[in-house]
């Protein structure tokens, strides 16, 4: 084992291996960090979540760092919640029984583009009579625009875009643009400055309280942007990491080790044992992997464990057997194997202690280079609709993006981010794998 | 003896390789000469640099060469001065050729053997295929392979046959000198004897000179006019064959001769203790000293080459007996 480790260390001579290793370590560290800070259950809940979790996220927003590269500063999401004290709340008695509650939201707007959506979330506590809210908008350049009126239920969501009367008043210009645009300029340009939203709520009962949350959904949100279900893509990108690595590693390990054992047994016993293994291999190599996986996924289960199992089972009797077999046949003829037979070693002992250690140096590069293959396979399966329905993986993100026509709509980040991660993993493992290959296969060393 | 040595003269030939573990001084100042129609046997054990010597003479250098210098006089001209193109056209396979170690395993498996033997003719002399094949035919006759074998592929021939084909390939351009690196090591005794017979015949018929590199001392006596003994990258003795086999001079030569088991004499062979030094990181001083029974204080310095009765020995023991040969031979301090 020591000599094996010494050999492995030799990849340090290759710069590409060092780069690859560094990247792998970073990715693994990222994966571990994710698993620790964002436990599995929580992640699944987040990923499955709807309004209640993602209500404050915009749909299909770009990542926040996009603003670093763009001339136009795109708006981030502005959330002002009266419960957090982010609105100036005042109360005046109104009439006999109710009050007039005024919530004033003030915020600065300095972006070069418009928010995506404007929504107010109301929460009202009352007994019988619904309070009545009326909204007023004030722009920095002194215009005042009446937004609309809403009758409040215990929870009420007022989406400005869905208000017909507002739409007519704004002459069909979408509110998120109309409320910010400079009327003087032809090309829609937002006015920069301090805006004010005043919500006046009239109550008809004593002891009524109303809270409201004003959300101006940005065009950029989060470190990785959001998807069509307002989910922060970071969740999927983060959790995709350990899932991809685990799948890749388990599949590569399971396949390679099993293939090696099968090849060893076949070569050592020869005869009909070898014959059967070869025939199974040949038939299996002809069988199409993807259609079979599709069938398994459709008729049985799409869980990632099932897929992993099916992939390993179908990959064992693949081309790897032929490669290992070729090497084992060579090793089998080695004098030391003959000597072992001469001093009475049993078949099992020879296979495990004499043949297999010889092949481990060859197995290692193949194992490392195999990891990205399975990582990509998992992503491809998801893209074909065979992904695990529950798990947030990189493949799932790409699949959602494709289904939502992301590339048509210019939402490149949605596809590029997971793709970049996939490529990173693939490249880094490949570089390390190539270097290991060069170390363990002396004939390639000159290259 | 020196006057006749007009075909090949090696002076201070050096070939060092760069490896991950350091510099390998494979050929470290080799010097000997060879005349027309003369056979020199270079005797040495594994690791002494003899295969590298063959490559050095023919300039078949690998990629990790660090030093390659010295003088190689072929018929009086220093071919080291020629550039690669000129060397390839004028010297390699034209004046000198090589039968490398395990040549019989290095035959091209997809060409018929007749074509392979013909190829050097077409490459170096620009002749048509017909003429080349005719010449190849003549070579097959010389080496004793039946002509109908020319149509066969390498794998159809036995080891002995393949070695003869390899020798034919080295002969086809009628070079003045052929270097053979362990030509019979992998062959059976009878086949070995047949091949040595063949080489003797070729030497008579075609008046070729040979450099035969081998570790097999008994076989070397079959062809040798002159013997050069190589140890740790240097030539430690050059002698006329008769004198060498009856009375070797250098202590290493003596021990080598004593270690050969003899069939016809009742002498128990002796062995040499220790091992030859690695060619990496050689220290100053006589390289055989650690194993030499006649080691003394002077051996801590590199011994020069002395000429004794027309023979050359690199050993301090002959300081009084002979005259010192050219000062540049004294190696690094």
């Amino acid at each position: 084992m020591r000599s094996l480790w010494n050999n492995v260390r030799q990849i340090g001579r290759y710069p590409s291996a060092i780069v690859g290793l560094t990247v792998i370590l970073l990715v693994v560290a990222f994966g571990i960090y994710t698993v620790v800070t964002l436990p599995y259950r929580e992640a699944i809940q987040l990923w499955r979540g709807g309004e209640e979790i993602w209500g404050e996220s915009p749909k299909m927003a770009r990542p926040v760092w996009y603003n670093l590269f763009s001339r136009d500063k795109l708006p981030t999401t502005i959330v002002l919640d009266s419960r957090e004290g982010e609105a100036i709340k005042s109360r005046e008695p109104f009439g006999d029984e109710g009050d007039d509650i005024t919530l004033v939201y003030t915020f600065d707007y300095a972006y070069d583009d418009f928010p995506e959506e404007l929504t107010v979330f109301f929460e009202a506590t009352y007994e019988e009579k619904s309070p009545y809210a009326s909204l007023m908008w004030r722009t920095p350049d002194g215009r005042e625009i009446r937004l609309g009126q809403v009758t409040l239920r215990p929870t009420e969501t007022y989406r400005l875009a869905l208000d017909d009367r507002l739409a007519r008043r704004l002459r069909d210009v979408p509110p998120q643009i109309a409320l910010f645009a400079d009327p003087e300029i032809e090309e829609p340009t937002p006015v920069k400055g301090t805006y004010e939203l005043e919500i006046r709520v009239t109550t008809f009962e004593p002891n009524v309280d109303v809270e409201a949350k004003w959300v101006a959904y940005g065009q950029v949100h989060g470190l990785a942007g959001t998807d069509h279900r307002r989910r922060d893509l970071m969740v999927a990108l983060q959790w995709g990491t350990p899932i991809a690595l685990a799948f890749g590693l388990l599949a590569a390990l399971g396949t390679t080790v099993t293939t090696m054992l099968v090849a060893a047994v076949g070569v050592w016993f020869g005869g009909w044992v070898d014959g059967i293994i070869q025939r199974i291999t040949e038939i299996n190599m002809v069988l199409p992997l993807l259609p079979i996986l599709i069938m398994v996924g459709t008729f049985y289960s799409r869980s990632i464990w099932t897929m992993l199992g099916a992939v390993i089972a179908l990959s064992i009797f693949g081309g790897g057997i032929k490669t290992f077999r070729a090497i084992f046949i060579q090793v089998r003829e080695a004098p030391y194997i003959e000597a072992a037979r001469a001093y009475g070693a049993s078949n099992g002992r020879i296979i495990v202690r004499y043949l297999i250690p010889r092949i481990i140096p060859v197995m290692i590069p193949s194992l490392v280079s195999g990891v990205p293959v399975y990582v990509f396979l998992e992503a491809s399966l998801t893209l074909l609709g065979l992904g695990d329905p529950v798990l947030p993986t990189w493949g799932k993100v790409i699949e959602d993006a494709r289904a939502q026509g992301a590339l048509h709509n210019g939402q490149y980040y949605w596809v590029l981010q997971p793709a970049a991660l996939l490529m990173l993993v693939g490249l880094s493992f490949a570089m390390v794998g190539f270097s290991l290959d060069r170390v363990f296969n002396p004939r390639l060393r000159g290259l | 003896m020196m006057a006749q040595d007009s075909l090949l003269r090696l002076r201070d030939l050096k070939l060092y390789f760069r490896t991950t573990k350091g510099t390998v001084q494979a050929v470290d100042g080799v010097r000997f000469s060879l005349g027309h129609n003369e056979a020199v046997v270079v005797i040495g054990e594994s690791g002494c640099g003899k295969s590298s010597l063959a490559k050095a003479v023919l300039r078949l250098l690998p990629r990790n060469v660090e030093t390659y210098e010295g003088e190689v006089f072929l018929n009086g001209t220093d071919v080291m001065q020629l550039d690669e193109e000129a060397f390839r056209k004028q010297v390699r396979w034209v004046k000198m050729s090589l039968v490398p170690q395990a040549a019989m395993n290095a035959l091209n498996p997809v060409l018929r053997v007749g074509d392979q033997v013909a190829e050097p003719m077409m490459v170096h002399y620009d002749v048509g295929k017909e003429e080349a094949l005719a010449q190849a035919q003549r070579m097959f006759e010389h080496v004793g392979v039946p002509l109908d074998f020319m149509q066969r592929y390498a794998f159809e021939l036995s080891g002995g046959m393949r070695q003869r084909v390899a020798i034919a390939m080295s002969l086809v351009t009628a070079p003045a000198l052929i270097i053979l690196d362990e030509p019979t090591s992998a062959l059976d005794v009878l086949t070995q004897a047949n091949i040595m017979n063949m080489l003797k015949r070729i030497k008579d018929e075609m008046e070729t000179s040979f450099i035969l590199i081998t570790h097999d001392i008994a076989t070397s006596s079959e062809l040798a006019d002159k013997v050069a003994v190589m140890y740790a990258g240097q030539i430690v003795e050059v002698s006329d064959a008769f004198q060498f086999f009856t009375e070797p001079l250098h202590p290493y030569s003596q021990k080598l001769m004593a270690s050969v088991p003899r069939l016809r004499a009742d002498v128990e062979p002796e062995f040499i203790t220790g091992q030859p030094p690695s060619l990496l990181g050689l220290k100053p001083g006589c390289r055989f000293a650690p194993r030499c029974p006649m080691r003394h204080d002077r051996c801590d310095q590199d011994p020069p080459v002395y000429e004794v009765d027309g023979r050359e020995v690199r050993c301090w023991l002959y300081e009084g007996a002979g005259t010192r040969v050219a000062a540049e031979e004294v190696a690094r301090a």
Partner: protein
Amino acid sequence: MDVVASSSSPVAADATRETMLSIKGLRVWFELRRWGFGHAGSVRAVDGVSFDLGYGEAIAVVGESGCGKSTLMKSILGLHLPTEGQIVFEGTNVAELGSRQMQWYRSHVGYVQQDPFGALPPFMMVSRILEEPLVINGVRDKVERQERIVQALEEVKLTPVDDFLNKFPHMLSGGQQQRIVIARAMILQPRLIVADEPVSMLDASIRVEILKLMRALQEAHDLAVIYITHDLSTVRYFSERIFVMYAGQIVEKARVDDLLANPSHPYTLALLAATSDPDPENALTFKDVPPGEPPSLVHPPAGCRFHPRCSHAIAGLCDAEEPPEFEISPHHTAACWLFK
């Protein structure tokens, strides 16, 4: 131990020793398969070999490649099953042993191979290499195993032992590797050692050292040794009897001195003529060796297998009938019609 009557073989073991191993009419044929099911003939690697070996006796089997000596040796080691004939070791026919008893037999025969580096597993340390045979053959006590390993290394003069225990084969020189192979062959305290060209891959100056070591071990432990080689010149120092093999059969058996004084079979004469001593006169003469190659073992020539290359062949006899062994002098036989 009974002395096995060896009436079928004219050359008994040396009269002063009891017979340990008796080979009778051994044939080892390998089938050539065609397309997995057909039968295209057999390679008759060993085709009728009989001899006896006494305890503590050293014999040499000499022949060129393809003569069957390796197959003969592997059959004695239990690695090939005989097609016909018997290998009787201490009264038991090896060919009939079950796998348990086979292991018992194998622990009594040590194997020294030709390629010292190839014979050692490159990924095992020396201590482990030597431990394997002990573990496999049931030596359970770790302390005892350690002791035996140290003893084995001392016997082959690899001292100080501690320097070698933790080394891997590639860290050792050819000579040292071969000593490990010998130590391994001896560690089970066998009665017989089979050595297949043990020094042909070593340097000239080391060969003698290893052969002398083996000779010393043989004498110290009263081991029987079968020494297989193609180099006649080493035989006289390291064995008492010599068998010359050609095309799967033994063509001459003799004590070494007798063979060198009075070589009889034409093939033996050819081998002797082909083996050189370092003698400058050699360059002046051509060797008297027969041309041609050893015959195919699938379709050997009719009658005496050497007849196509033999300059003394008697037409009508040598090409028709296989010669039996004729006694030339006590303990010296040759299978050649010339000695009828």
